[in-house]
C-alpha cells in the first residue's frame, strides 16, 4: 500500500451521492434544439467555420481553435444551424454569449469522411506524441472537471513530467459523473490513461486518486490495472481533496509553488472524464460532443447520470427526470459548494457541466444573514490552502489590496470550506471572489495606465524633438542672414570707403545684383557644367532621332509618300538639333582639351554620334532588308503550320495568311530594289561623317526621287500636304483663340502664309493642267 498524506484542513460534508448511482448512465431522447456556446473553455475564442442556415453532420467542426490556448467545438448531431446569436450561457454572471443553435434533423448521421468505426487510430503508438496532441486539440477536449482548460495545452508541458495523476476524487457532494464512468467504463479509462502516459513520455509514476467512498469504482478499475504500472490509490473522504493542488499534496506530499503550475513540480493532473474523452478521440476519432452529467436533487423525481450531448438545454434534461419547478427555489450547476445558480432553463449543458442540482428549499436552504466575525478561527482550520480566511475577510471588507496580496489571496481555491464552517454564516468565499475580481481589474488598469504613461512620455519627447529641430533651423537661417549682411557691409566698406549713408540704403539692391553676378560667374567658371548640359541635349536629340527612325521603320511599305515625307522631315529636324549641340560641344572642348579627364569625357559623345549616324545611314535600306527577312521567316513558319494542319478550315485560313504574307514580301522586295537607287548618293559618301552633309544628301535624294515623279503629281502632292497643314494650323488657331493664348498672332500669320502658298500651288496646278 502506498503512503498517502493527509489533506490540510478540509471539512466533512454530507455526501448525498447515493441518490444518483442507483441506475446506470442513461441516454436522453434528442432535444428539439441544441445551443452550443462558442467558448466553453479557458482561453481564446475559437474561429467560427459555419454560417447560419448551413447543414452540418455529427462530429463536424463548427469552430476551430484559434491560438495556442484554445479549443474548438463540434456538431453533437446532424442538423441545421438555425442561428448564431447571443444566448444565455452557464456562467455565474448569467450573461449571454455567442452561441450556435442547431436544429437536429433526427438522422444523427456522422460526418462522411470518417465512418464511425474506422476513423480512429488503430495503434496510437505508431504515431508521435505531437500527432496525438494535435488530435486532442482538434477534438476540442478541455478539462471536464470544471475548469475547462484545454487538455492539449496541459499535456504539452515544457517541464519533464515524472508523475501523471488521474483525478477520480470527485469530492463535491451530489456529483457522481466520474464515479459512474469508472464503474461502467473502466477499461476505456485505463486505455485513456495509457494514451496520456505515452504522450507524456511514460512518466515514472501513474496514480489514480480515489476517495474511499467509491468502493464500486475501485473494484471495477482494479482488474484492468494488473499488468500495468498504474497505481490505484485510495484515501480518506474529505472535502476538498479533489482540488488539483490538494490531490497532489495527498498523493505525493509535494506543494505546487505560489503562482505556479503542477508541471513545475513535474506533475500533470487529469480528470477521469477528460481521460475518457481522450480515449474516445484517439481510438474512436470521436470529438468531444457529449459528456456524462449528473442530474440530482429532491426537486427531481429520478436522480441519475446521463450521457448528454453538449448543447442540450437544461430544461430538456430536467423534463425527463420529473422536475418540479415549484419545489426548487434555485437551480445549481456544479455542486453545492462551488456551483453557481442558473437563472434560465434554456441554458445549455457545456463541456464542464458535471452536475445539474435541483434541490428543494429544505435541502439547500438560503444561508441565514451573516453575523459579525467572532474570530473563532474555525475557517483557518478548515482552509486547505493554509490561508487565514478571517484576516482575508477583514482586508477584503476594507479593500486593503496590499494586505490581501501579502496574505496570498490568489492561492485561495474558492472551495467554500471556510464559509461552510463559519458559525456566523459569513459568505467568506463571496468576499474573496469579489476582492480577486477587483484586484484583477486594478492590475489590468495599472498595465493600461502604465502603457498610456509611456505613450504620453514618448509623445512629449517627440514633440520636444520636433520643436527643437524647428528652432535649430530657424537659428541657422537667422545666423546665415546675419553673416550675409555682415559680409555685404564689409564689401561696401571696402568699395565705398567712408560712404556710410549710401551703404545702408543700397544694400538690398546690391545683394540682388551681386547674386546675379555670382550666378553669371558660376556659369562662366564651370565649362564642365555647360558641357554636361550640352551632352544631355545631345542624348535627348539622339533618342529623338532614334524614335523617329523607329517610326519610319515601322511604316508599312504601302504607306503613303506623305507619311514618309513627314518622318524624314522630323529626322532632319532632329539631326539639325543634334548637329547644333555637337558643334557647341566641340567649341567647348577646344579650350579644355588640355586636361586628361576632359578628353576622356569628350570621347563618349563622339562614339554615340557615330552609332546614330550609322543607324541613320543604314536605315531605310536595312530596315527593308530586315523586313524582308522577317517576312520570309514568317512565311516559312506558316508553311510549316500549313503542312501540319489537318483541319480543313484551318488550312484555308493559313493559306490565306500565307498568300498575304507573300504579297507583302513581294512589295517589300520591289521597294528594296528601288531604294538603292534613291539612296545611292548618301551611301556613296562614306567619308562625310558630318551628319549635316548626310541630311543634305538625303534631301537631294528626295529631290531626285521627286524628280522621277511627273510634275503634275508633284504639285498635287504638295497641294494636298499644304491643305493638310492649313487644316492643322487653323485648328490650332481656333484652340489658341479659345484659350486666349499669347501666340495667336503667330498662328494667324502662319495660317495666312499657308493659305497664300496653297493658292499659289493650286493656280500652278491649274495652269499645268491647261
Amino acid at each position, binding site marked *: 500500500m502506498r503512503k498517502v498524506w493527509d489533506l490540510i484542513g478540509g471539512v466533512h460534508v454530507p455526501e448525498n451521492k447515493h441518490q444518483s448511482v442507483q441506475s446506470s448512465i442513461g441516454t436522453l431522447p434528442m432535444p428539439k434544439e441544441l445551443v452550443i456556446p462558442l467558448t466553453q473553455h479557458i482561453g481564446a475564442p475559437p474561429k467560427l467555420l459555419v454560417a447560419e442556415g448551413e447543414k452540418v453532420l455529427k462530429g463536424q467542426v463548427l469552430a476551430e481553435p484559434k491560438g495556442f490556448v484554445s479549443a474548438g467545438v463540434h456538431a453533437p448531431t446532424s442538423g441545421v444551424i438555425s442561428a448564431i446569436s447571443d444566448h444565455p450561457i452557464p456562467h455565474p454572471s448569467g450573461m449571454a454569449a455567442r452561441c450556435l443553435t442547431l436544429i437536429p434533423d433526427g438522422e444523427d448521421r456522422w460526418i462522411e469522411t470518417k465512418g464511425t468505426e474506422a476513423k480512429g487510430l488503430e495503434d496510437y503508438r505508431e504515431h508521435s506524441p505531437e500527432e496525438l496532441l494535435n488530435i486532442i486539440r482538434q477534438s476540442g477536449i478541455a478539462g471536464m472537471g470544471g475548469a475547462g482548460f484545454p487538455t492539449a495545452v496541459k499535456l504539452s508541458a515544457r517541464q519533464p513530467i515524472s508523475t501523471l495523476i488521474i483525478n477520480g476524487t470527485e469530492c463535491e457532494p451530489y456529483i457522481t459523473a466520474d464515479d459512474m464512468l469508472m464503474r461502467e467504463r473502466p477499461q476505456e479509462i485505463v486505455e485513456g490513461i495509457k494514451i496520456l502516459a505515452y504522450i507524456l513520455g511514460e512518466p515514472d509514476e501513474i496514480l489514480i486518486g480515489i476517495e474511499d467512498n467509491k468502493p464500486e469504482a475501485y473494484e471495477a478499475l482494479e482488474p484492468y490495472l494488473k499488468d500495468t504500472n498504474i497505481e490505484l490509490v485510495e484515501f480518506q473522504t474529505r472535502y476538498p481533496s479533489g482540488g488539483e493542488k490538494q490531490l497532489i499534496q495527498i498523493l505525493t506530499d509535494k506543494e505546487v509553488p505560489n503562482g505556479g503550475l503542477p508541471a513545475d513540480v513535474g506533475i500533470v493532473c487529469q480528470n477521469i472524464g477528460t481521460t475518457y474523452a481522450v480515449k474516445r478521440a484517439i481510438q474512436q476519432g470521436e470529438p468531444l460532443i457529449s459528456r456524462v452529467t449528473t442530474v440530482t436533487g429532491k426537486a427531481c423525481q429520478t436522480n441519475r447520470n446521463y450521457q448528454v450531448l453538449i448543447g442540450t438545454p437544461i430544461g430538456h434534461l430536467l423534463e425527463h427526470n420529473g422536475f418540479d419547478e415549484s419545489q426548487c427555489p434555485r437551480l445549481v450547476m456544479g455542486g453545492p459548494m462551488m456551483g453557481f445558480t442558473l437563472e434560465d432553463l434554456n441554458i445549455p449543458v457545456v463541456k464542464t457541466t458535471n452536475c445539474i442540482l435541483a434541490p428543494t428549499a429544505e435541502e439547500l436552504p438560503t444561508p441565514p*444573514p*451573516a453575523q459579525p466575525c467572532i474570530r473563532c478561527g474555525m475557517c483557518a482550520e478548515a482552509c486547505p490552502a493554509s490561508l487565514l480566511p478571517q484576516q482575508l475577510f477583514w482586508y477584503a471588507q476594507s479593500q486593503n489590496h496590499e494586505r490581501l496580496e501579502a496574505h496570498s489571496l490568489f492561492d485561495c481555491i474558492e472551495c467554500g470550506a471556510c464559509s461552510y464552517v463559519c458559525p456566523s454564516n459569513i459568505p467568506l468565499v463571496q468576499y474573496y471572489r469579489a476582492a480577486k*475580481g477587483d484586484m484583477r481589474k486594478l492590475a489590468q488598469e495599472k498595465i493600461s495606465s502604465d502603457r498610456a*504613461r509611456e505613450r*504620453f512620455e514618448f509623445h512629449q519627447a517627440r514633440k520636444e524633438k520636433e520643436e527643437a529641430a524647428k528652432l535649430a533651423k530657424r537659428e541657422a537661417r537667422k545666423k546665415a542672414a546675419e553673416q550675409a549682411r555682415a559680409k555685404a557691409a564689409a564689401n561696401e566698406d571696402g568699395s565705398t570707403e567712408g560712404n556710410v549713408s549710401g551703404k545702408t540704403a543700397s544694400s538690398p539692391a546690391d545683394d540682388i545684383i551681386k547674386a546675379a553676378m555670382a550666378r553669371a560667374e558660376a556659369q562662366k567658371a564651370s565649362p564642365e557644367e555647360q558641357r554636361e548640359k550640352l551632352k544631355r541635349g545631345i542624348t535627348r536629340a539622339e533618342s529623338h532621332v532614334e524614335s523617329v527612325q523607329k517610326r519610319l521603320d515601322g511604316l508599312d511599305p504601302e504607306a503613303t509618300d506623305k507619311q514618309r515625307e513627314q518622318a524624314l522631315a522630323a529626322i532632319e529636324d532632329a539631326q539639325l538639333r543634334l548637329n547644333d549641340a555637337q558643334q557647341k560641344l566641340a567649341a567647348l572642348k577646344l579650350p579644355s582639351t588640355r586636361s586628361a579627364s576632359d578628353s576622356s569625357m569628350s570621347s563618349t559623345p563622339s562614339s554615340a554620334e557615330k552609332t546614330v549616324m550609322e543607324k541613320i545611314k543604314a536605315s531605310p535600306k536595312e530596315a527593308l532588308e530586315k523586313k524582308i527577312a522577317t517576312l520570309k521567316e514568317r512565311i516559312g513558319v506558316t508553311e510549316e503550320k500549313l503542312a501540319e494542319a489537318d483541319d480543313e478550315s484551318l488550312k484555308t485560313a493559313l493559306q490565306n495568311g500565307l498568300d498575304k504574307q507573300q504579297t507583302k514580301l513581294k512589295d517589300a522586295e520591289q521597294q528594296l530594289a528601288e531604294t538603292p537607287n534613291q539612296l545611292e548618293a548618301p551611301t556613296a559618301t562614306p567619308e562625310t561623317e558630318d551628319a549635316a552633309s548626310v541630311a543634305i544628301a538625303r534631301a537631294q535624294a528626295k529631290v531626285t526621287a521627286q524628280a522621277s515623279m511627273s510634275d503634275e503629281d508633284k504639285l498635287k502632292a504638295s497641294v494636298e500636304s499644304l491643305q493638310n497643314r492649313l487644316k492643322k494650323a487653323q485648328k490650332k488657331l481656333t484652340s489658341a483663340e479659345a484659350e486666349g493664348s499669347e501666340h495667336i498672332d503667330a498662328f494667324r500669320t502662319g495660317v495666312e502664309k499657308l493659305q497664300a502658298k496653297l493658292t499659289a500651288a493650286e493656280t500652278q496646278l491649274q495652269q499645268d493642267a491647261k
Partner: protein
Amino acid sequence: MYDIIAQNPLSAALVALVGLSVIFGAVLGYAAIKFKVEGDPIVAQIDKLLPQTQCGQCGYPGCRPYAEAIANGDTINKCPPGGQTTINAIADLLDVEAPTLDEEHGEESDVKTIAYIREDECIGCTKCIQACPVDAILGAAKLMHTVIVSECTGCDLCVEPCPVDCIDMLPVAKGLGDWKWDMPASPEEQINGLSSINMIATDKDSDASDKTDGDKAA
C-alpha cells in the same frame, strides 16, 4: 600629549570639534555627490497614482505636469477621471486630509468611455491625431482616421478639434471578460432585505432602523 590637553582644555576641545566637523563634512559632501537621487521621487510616486488619461481636465497638460504641480503644493482634488479613489490614494501618500473632488474640473463618472470615429464622415484632417496625447489615433492627411481602441484613454481631447464632429465618446462594451463577483451585501442590508427570516430573540427586539440610528449615535 595628555599634558598638553590637560593644560589647554578649551583649545583642545576646539581642535577636536573642528577636526570632527571637517571629517563629517567631507563624508556628507561625498555622500551627497555619490548617492545623489535623480529626479523628484515624490513626483513619480504621485504620477503613478494618477489615472494617466492625460486629459488635462486638471488644467495641466497631462498627468505628470499635474503630479509636479501637486508636489509643489497644488490641491489634489482636480482629477475627475481618477475620482475619489485617486484623491484618497494621493492623500494617503502625502499624509494630508482627503478632500472631495473639485466639481469645477468635471464630474467623476463610473462609465469608462472611449473615442470612436464615424469613419464614413471623417475627412482626414489629422486634427484629432495632433490632439491625441497618447498617439492612439491612426490616419494620414485626406485618409480616414481610426482610434486604436486598446490605447485610447478616453481623455476626450480629440472631440473638440474635429471640424465635422465625427468623433463620439462611447461607453466601453462590457463583456463576460469584464464581469466580476459583487461584494456580498452587508449584514444590515441582508436583514432589511430578508425581514421574513427568523432571527434570534435579541435581533427581533431591535428594529433594523433603530440599530442603524444607534450606530450613528455611537
